């Protein structure tokens, strides 16, 4: 079946450092969506990106669907950024909001 591989599995940063999270997928995805999962469980949607580069706040998502890869850049990390970042790929018709397949996540710890 379709697979999503995220790297690194975990990452420890000092406050203020930048983070680069990678996502590789086994099939040609129509869209990548990035989520943040708080310690304790709830998921928050960060960015949804079908291709190219998209920014919001300190976050930059880059999706290169032909190369089956994507990334999430977090600039000037803060302690409150700590948690797990999940990448999910959508297969299916463009714009159909079809099924998502998730990676296992990158656990980010930001220390002072």
């Amino acid at each position, binding site marked *: *079946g379709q697979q999503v591989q995220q790297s690194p599995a975990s990452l420890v940063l000092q406050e203020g450092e930048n983070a680069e999270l990678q996502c590789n997928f086994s099939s040609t995805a129509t869209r990548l969506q990035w989520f943040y999962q708080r310690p304790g469980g*709830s*998921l928050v949607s960060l960015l*949804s*990106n*079908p291709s190219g580069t998209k920014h919001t706040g300190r976050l930059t998502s880059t999706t290169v669907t032909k190369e089956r890869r994507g990334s999430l850049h977090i600039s000037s990390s803060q302690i409150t950024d700590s948690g797990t970042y*999940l990448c999910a790929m*959508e297969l299916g018709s463009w714009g159909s*909001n079809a*099924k998502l397949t998730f990676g296992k996540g990158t656990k980010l710890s930001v220390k002072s």
Partner: protein
Amino acid sequence: EAAVTQSPRNKVAVTGGKVTLSCNQTNNHNNMYWYRQDTGHGLRLIHYSYGAGSTEKGDIPDGYKASRPSQENFSLILELATPSQTSVYFCASGDGGLYAEQFFGPGTRLTVL
């Protein structure tokens, strides 16, 4: 942002019992989804729906049924709960579009003894 709520938030059930997990969304999204999250497996899709009256099997549907009686409500039903169904269950909703997103509820922690 879409508002998705789930009930109950925590549930302890006995093996062989029937469990119903409920999900409600208030933003009129057509699509709704049920996932489970387990350590080592990540989030996996159980059932989904494209609108009232429709349900579709996801990647791991065995042992689960789903019901979508209205645009707002989507239920996950475990007719005969087993300990292997102990997990955290998430409901999500979303719609189509170039930058379509899925929005998640807070999760339900289910323990089957």
